């Protein structure tokens, strides 16, 4: 049972009867860092990992989007949440590391990062930067260079919780509901990765619990496409 994960920040009967003894809370007071989960993206290009997962991303510090439960993430809710404009040029900008945007009262910075893992642990990104970790909406952007046109490719995504993803400005895949991150969880319809630059944009929303995502492209045989490279132009100012 994990009440914080998912549904229940709802009041719970079991919570009331438990005499909890938290014995090691001091760890939460330690200085925070996004290491070892992330390192700053370098100017050089980066290939996907051995399974084709994209590990280089521009991540925007989390937008406050309070939700006490993830059960609200039905299709209509997340489609509205992900098509709302929170900051100018939200659906077209390729930001630089350190760029800032204003969302309501929040001033949020973009971070050009390489994930040390196959997935991108948004929870650790927010926690390490002393930002809100629950009730949040993340934006992520990356640029993938393809050596050739690759028809019949698919974008394969897993996210925690709901998310929506675009390729070159077109909606590719949406993941609704109170969802955990599983590799290849939701896969786009067939699409073409163009020779040269392809822009991937994603948004992930979460109430309570950990937030993360994983993205890769698979070919028409379901195999990962690995001869790609990522370069966040001018990402590291």
């Amino acid at each position, binding site marked *: *049972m*994990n*009440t*914080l*994960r*998912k*549904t*229940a920040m*709802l009041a*719970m009967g*079991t*919570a009331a*009867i*438990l*005499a*909890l*003894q*938290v*014995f*090691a*809370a*001091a*760890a*939460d007071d*330690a200085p925070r860092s996004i290491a070892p989960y992330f390192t700053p993206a370098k100017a050089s290009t980066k290939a996907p990992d051995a399974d084709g997962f994209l590990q280089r991303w521009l991540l925007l510090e989390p937008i406050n989007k309070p939700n006490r439960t*993830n*059960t609200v993430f039905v299709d209509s809710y997340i489609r509205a949440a992900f098509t709302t404009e929170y900051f100018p040029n939200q659906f077209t900008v390729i930001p630089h590391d350190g760029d800032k945007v204003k969302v309501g009262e929040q001033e949020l910075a973009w971070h050009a990062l390489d994930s040390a893992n*196959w*997935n991108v642990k948004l929870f650790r990104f927010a*926690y390490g930067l002393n930002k809100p970790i629950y009730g949040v909406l993340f934006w992520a952007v990356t640029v993938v260079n393809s050596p050739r046109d690759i028809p019949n490719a698919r974008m394969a995504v*897993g996210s925690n919780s709901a998310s929506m993803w675009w390729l070159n400005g077109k909606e590719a895949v949406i993941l609704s509901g*109170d969802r*955990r*991150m*599983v*590799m*290849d*969880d939701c896969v786009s319809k067939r699409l073409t990765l163009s020779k040269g630059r392809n822009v991937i944009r994603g948004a992930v929303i979460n109430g*309570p*619990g*950990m937030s993360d995502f*994983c993205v890769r492209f698979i070919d028409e045989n379901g195999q990962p496409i690995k001869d790609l490279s990522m370069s966040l132009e001018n990402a590291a100012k």
Partner: protein
Amino acid sequence: MKSRTLAAMGLLAAGAALLCFAQSRPAPALDGEPYIHDPSTVTYCEGKYYTYGTGGGGLISDDGWTWHTGATRPGGGVAPDVIRIGDRYLMSYARGGGGLGGGHASGVHTMWSKTLDPKSPNFGFTDDTIVASSDGVEDNDAIDPAFLLDPTTNRLWLSYGTYYGFIRLVELDPKTGKRVAGNQAVNIAIDMEATAMMYRDGWYYLLGTHGTCCDGANSTYNIRVARSRKVTGPYVDNMGIDALKGGGKLFVAASGRFVGPGHFGLLDLGDGVQKFSCHYEADLDRSGRSVLDIRPMMWQDGWPVAGDNFQAGTYEIESERKGYALELAVDFVRMDRGGRGGFGGFGAPAGPVTPLAAQELAQVSTNWPAGNVALRLGDFMARPHQKWTITPVANVGGYPGSPYFKIAIAGTDRTLTATADGDVVALPAFTSSPEQLWRIDQLTDGTYRIMPKSMAGSKEPMALTAVGASTPTLAKFDPKSDKARWMFKKP
């Protein structure tokens, strides 16, 4: 949670008032007051079954079918597990974490007792010790412990964790219940909680719960499984996806009136009967509350498959030995062949195509003997003397996961009955005697074992057996033979 071999069958004396359940109603998830969340592996101790849940309490059952509150343990906390090692019981539970109060700092505790019976003078747990912990920041939440005593090495393992990071595996000393000195935790999965492990035929299986708990009828809890050749992993699912990347083959999800199964526990009853315990987040027939259930478990292509407890209905009872059907030994009554005599019945009809009426009970039963009727096995012809109506019987106890059943020829009270000399016969009336109450267990290959609750002159459990291709009897169950395996088919 761990495999347990349970020798005793927990047979009870019959109750006084008898009532057959309505056939149209789905089988309930156990009888009594089986209300629990995060149940520990069902454990047999001195004639009773025990399971413990979040909060400190637990349930007790005399037979595995009817459950009441009464099991107790110290420590409170969440999601315990129990394993019998030698002549003692090792209990584990967690305090802290689980997101309760917003925290993930937790400790997994273990403690011993000589018995689980709170009324026994030997009852009492030792001081507990912490065998694993999480600091609230790391990628782990040290709750939901589950034991595995590896039958190949006798090494004791404990898995724990939730969605908050990794499921981890540590090794304990089976003599002390403490962490093996120097042992380092191994990450074996993500996206799971309420894990359990088991071993079979060279594979280690990791079962865990995906989805959402604690939201009643809206909980999406479901149980998944991955397997590994090594206890420390990697555990992969049927698609080859590592549990560390969210892999997990579905084992059981919501069905019927039961929503959100979670917290798998293996109950190995021996002789090829394996069952599993779980809780449903919501039993829609019990005010949507969380309840315990016990269901059959089967195996297919090296993967565990959740079965359903036996459903009332009218069936052919088919022997796996020869494929013959259990029937009354009465005269075979020929059906009308559609106006054609002699050899044949081939080719298209000369006139319009018309259905032939099925043979009805009233057409044949008037010629059946009024008293006891012998039984035999024969070619199934969908005739009245071969169709058995099987009905659960209330207030006579049961066995793990199920009540006893009455088995009678459809439309009659001619009831399958065990005789004192170890055979079977159809008596003309149902008297609710133990010889007429039948235990139906699904075996791991999907077939069934059929046993009388008890029979005069025998203290040993007996099973319906095809001693000859056409001859039924009662005999000690042989798990290696098809003689005592049966299938229930819709006639």
